[in-house]
């Protein structure tokens, strides 16, 4: 396997509120290779977006990086590298702009928040392109048109002069993708890029993202709460719960032989369009409260396999049978989900 371009180790991002501390991300680890898709899946509040934002320096007060390393292989800041990697967690404020948008791009769920309604597509695209590349305005416009063509606009020369409100939801998300890939980044982070879209449009966007990823051989971090979309897109999958990496392995193993009780429970409670007379097994209880959460496994209160030990200490993320898993009592003889 090739050496990863990104290695995230024990990442922690905390929010200091008047009522206490919210450990939005608390011990997340994964790595990403060139031409690979990592899917991050988890329920609301599990820390997916905070993970994504932490990678690219988008955490603002009251949030702070409270620990961990984000090693990224990049030509930027050569003097600060160790073993060919730059630790992004050490960058300060402005320094991120040399990375974000150029080497690592991020796409959010709602395209309307990433596009400025007052400016045309051309204005917004050329601004990003000229910020990161040494080109003049005309060249930037040509790149913009080329990118719009790549993301599937049939008449990009005209479309580029339109305003966001003149486009449909799916078209806007295409524009956002075009901007994100316009500087040919090594890593693209997509945070629920299709959640606001209808399924036929979602299918178009997913297909587009797969095609672009194959063409540019970039690394893709694909975030969603939808296990079906994860199955469709990912090479490897990281399951998050309560701010933590719970399980992390290749996509086939996650779906066929999940080891973590949470992953297993999650797969048993989703209705499936391809199955007749399915039996659902809901997970009892609620997702965890994140404020001043105890240093124990966040799934503990809902877990059917909990042990005495789970009430006393937090399991760390360990490597076993090709899995990374955080659990004292994993399912080891494999339960099938055919």
């Amino acid at each position, binding site marked *: 396997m090739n050496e990863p371009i990104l290695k995230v180790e024990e990442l922690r991002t905390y929010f200091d509120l008047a009522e206490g501390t919210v450990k939005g991300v608390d011990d997340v680890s994964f790595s990403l290779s060139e031409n690979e898709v990592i899917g991050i899946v988890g*329920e*609301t509040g599990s820390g997916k977006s905070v993970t994504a934002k932490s990678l690219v320096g988008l955490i603002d007060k009251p949030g702070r990086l409270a620990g961990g390393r984000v090693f990224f292989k990049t030509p930027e800041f050569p003097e600060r590298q160790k073993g060919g990697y730059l630790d992004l967690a050490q960058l300060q404020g402005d320094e991120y702009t040399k990375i974000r948008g150029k080497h690592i791009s991020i796409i959010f769920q709602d395209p309307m928040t990433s596009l400025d309604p007052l400016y045309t597509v051309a204005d917004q695209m050329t601004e990003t392109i000229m910020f990161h590349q040494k080109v003049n305005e005309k060249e930037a416009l040509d790149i913009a048109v080329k990118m719009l063509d790549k993301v599937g606009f049939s008449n990009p020369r005209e479309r580029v002069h339109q305003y966001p409100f003149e486009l*449909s939801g*799916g078209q806007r998300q295409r524009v956002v993708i075009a901007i994100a890939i316009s500087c040919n980044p090594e890593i693209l982070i997509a945070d629920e890029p299709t959640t606001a879209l*209808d*399924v*036929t*449009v*979602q*299918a*178009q966007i*997913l*297909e587009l993202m797969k095609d672009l990823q194959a063409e540019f051989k970039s690394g893709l971090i694909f975030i969603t*709460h*939808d*296990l*079906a*979309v*994860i*199955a*469709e897109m*990912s090479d490897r999958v990281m399951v998050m719960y309560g701010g933590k990496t719970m399980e992390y392995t290749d*996509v*086939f193993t996650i*779906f066929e032989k999940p080891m973590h009780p949470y992953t297993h*429970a*999650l*797969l048993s*409670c*989703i*209705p*499936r*369009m*391809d*199955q*007749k007379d*399915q039996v*659902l*097994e*809901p*997970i*009892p209880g*609620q*997702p965890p409260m994140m404020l001043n959460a105890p240093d124990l496994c966040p799934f503990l209160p*809902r877990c059917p396999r909990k042990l005495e030990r789970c009430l006393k200490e937090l399991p760390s993320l360990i490597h076993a049978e090709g899995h990374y898993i955080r659990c004292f009592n994993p399912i080891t003889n494999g339960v099938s*989900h055919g």
Partner: protein
Amino acid sequence: MNDSGSKVLLEVRDLQKYFPIKSGFLIQKTVAQLKAVDGVSFTIDKGHTFGIVGESGCGKTTIGRTIIRLLNPTGGNIFLEGEDIAILKERSLKQYRQKMQIVFQDPTSSLNPRMTVGQTLSEPLLFHGMVRSKKEVEERMSQLLSSVGLKPYHVDRYPHQFSGGQRQRIAIARAICVDPSLIVLDEPTSALDVSVQAQIIKLLKELQGKLNAGYIFISHNLSVVRYISDRVGIMYLGKMVEKGDTNEIFENPMHPYSKALLAATPIPDPKTRRKRKELLSGQVPSPINRPTGCFFRTRCKYAMPACEKEYPQMVRIAQNHSVSCHLYSLGEPEKIVEK
């Protein structure tokens, strides 16, 4: 089941709901009609669930709200237990209101934040004269709370003290407290996490067994609809393009739009990962300016000259399966069952 006359709970026949598009500065004139629901027919048996699926804007919510008369229909009939409630005026409608309840997608905005759970539930009980004494209210209340999986001590709490899933349980308790025979569930789990969604779906199924109520389950999530529905209708631009038994629709979809919708839905199994499946191109046309003939023809790869001329009739192609597409127009035109 004994005789078929008593089995049917609801029969919707050629239902229409148009919204006028107005224009003009001082004097507003109706310049066009937005045909949100345009000739939809289906039936629901007692204790059964009819699922309505389709993409945003196809008219799902409008159907649900029109059937229970939160909106006035533009045309068509709504037979609830044999009575056409489409034509009833507000005063005569009152006795039917109790029989028809609705649960919305967002429990936060559908519950009054200043009312405790107890107040929320006792109001409809008292309004519809379902309880006579304070003691009866309390008995009914604790029974209701336990049937939706809440605890008796929850009765004095306010909505903000509950999680999203628990709030949806309260909204369901409010809907079932007056013993309705029909409940419209408009995306009741779309705002919930998957682990909580399963709890709510299971609860709805259990309650249906107890109450023998008919459900109209509206969702854009095909997997949830397959799980909960006995029969399903697929909508496109205000029309139902295909309807039938759930397994039939999911295993043997006939309408090109139904096929595309199913093909576009991802499945949580990496082994079935689609390989360059045929994707639907383009977008849904504007509902104010729909194509002539079949509304789907502009995106349909089977479109023929006939499709431009007239909208295809709904034809029955199997015992419990009808489709509205010129490809199948040799079938037996669906006859409207007269009362």
